[in-house]
C-alpha cells in the first residue's frame, strides 16, 4: 500500500462518518411468534397443567376405590361378608390384590363371576340350552 494514501486519524473519522451515511438494506422481519411456544413460562404452565390433570385423575381413582371398599377394610375381607349370589362386581384392583394374597376369596369370586357372566346351561332362557334342543 502506498504510504502517500495513508489517512490520519481525523481523515479516518470523517471517512467512517461518510460510510455510515449509507445504510445497508434491512432483511425482512423475523416471524413474530417463532419462539412463543418455546419460552420457559409457557412450558412451565403446560407442565403444571399436565400434573394437575394427572393428580385429579389419581384422586378420583383412589376415591372411587375407597367407596367400593367402604370402611377401609381390605378387599378380601369385604368379599367374604357378601353372599356369593349378591356380590356386586369387584374391581380389577381388588381382584388382583386377592389373587396376589393367595386368598380363597379369589376362587370364590371367580366362581361367582363364572355363574354371573358365563353362559349357563341350566337356566330356561339359556342360549346354550336352546341351541342344544335344536
Amino acid at each position, binding site marked *: *500500500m502506498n504510504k502517500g494514501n495513508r489517512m490520519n486519524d481525523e481523515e*479516518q473519522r470523517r471517512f467512517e462518518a461518510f*460510510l455510515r451515511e449509507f*445504510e*445497508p438494506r434491512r432483511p425482512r422481519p*423475523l416471524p413474530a411468534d417463532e419462539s*412463543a411456544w418455546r419460552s420457559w413460562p409457557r412450558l412451565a404452565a403446560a407442565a403444571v397443567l399436565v400434573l394437575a390433570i394427572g393428580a385429579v385423575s389419581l384422586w378420583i381413582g383412589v376415591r372411587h376405590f375407597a367407596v367400593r371398599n367402604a370402611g377401609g377394610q381390605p378387599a378380601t375381607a369385604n368379599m367374604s361378608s357378601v353372599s356369593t349370589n349378591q356380590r356386586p362386581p369387584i374391581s380389577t384392583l381388588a381382584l388382583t390384590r386377592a389373587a396376589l394374597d393367595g386368598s380363597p376369596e379369589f376362587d370364590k369370586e371367580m366362581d361367582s363371576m363364572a355363574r354371573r357372566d358365563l353362559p349357563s346351561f341350566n337356566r330356561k332362557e339359556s342360549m346354550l340350552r336352546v341351541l342344544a334342543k335344536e
Partner: protein
Amino acid sequence: MPEQRLSADDVRQLYDRHGAALLLYARGFVADAGAAEDLVHGVFLNLLRTRPKVREAPAAYLYRAVKNAALNLQRNRARESPLPEQEVWFTHQGGGDREAGLALQSALSELPTEQREAVVMRIWSGMTLEEVAEATGVPLSTAASRYRYALEKLRERLKPNERNDE
C-alpha cells in the same frame, strides 16, 4: 467469555442491530440477493428454534454462522451460473445519492474477504476492533491493519463521491 443461552428477545435485538450488516456481509459471498436474505433469516430462525449455547460474543457467533452458511451455499451452487446482481445494497440517509451507493457497493465487493468483513463489522455492526479480531480469529493488530487497508482502498475508489458529499 462465559457460555450463554440467548433468549428470544436477545435474538430479536441482535437481528435489529446486526441484521442489515449481516445481509451486506452475506452478499459478499452470495450473488443472489434473495438467497443472501434467506440465508441470514435462516441463521436467526435457527437460533430462535434451537437456542444453542454460545461461548463467544453473540455478534462474532452470528458472523461465523452466516459465513459458514454462505460458504455451504456457494459449494452447493458451484456449478450454477451466478445471477446478475441488480439490487442496490444501500440506502443513503440523505435520500438519493444512488450513484454513490452503487460505487460503494462495487468498491466493497472488490475488497478481499477479510478486509470486507473487517469494515462491515466495524462500520455497520458497530463492533470494536477487539470484537472484530475475536470474530475473525486473528490478533488485534491484524484486524486493525485489515480494517485500515480496507478504508484506504474504499476511500481511493470513492473519492469523487466523498468530495461531492462534503
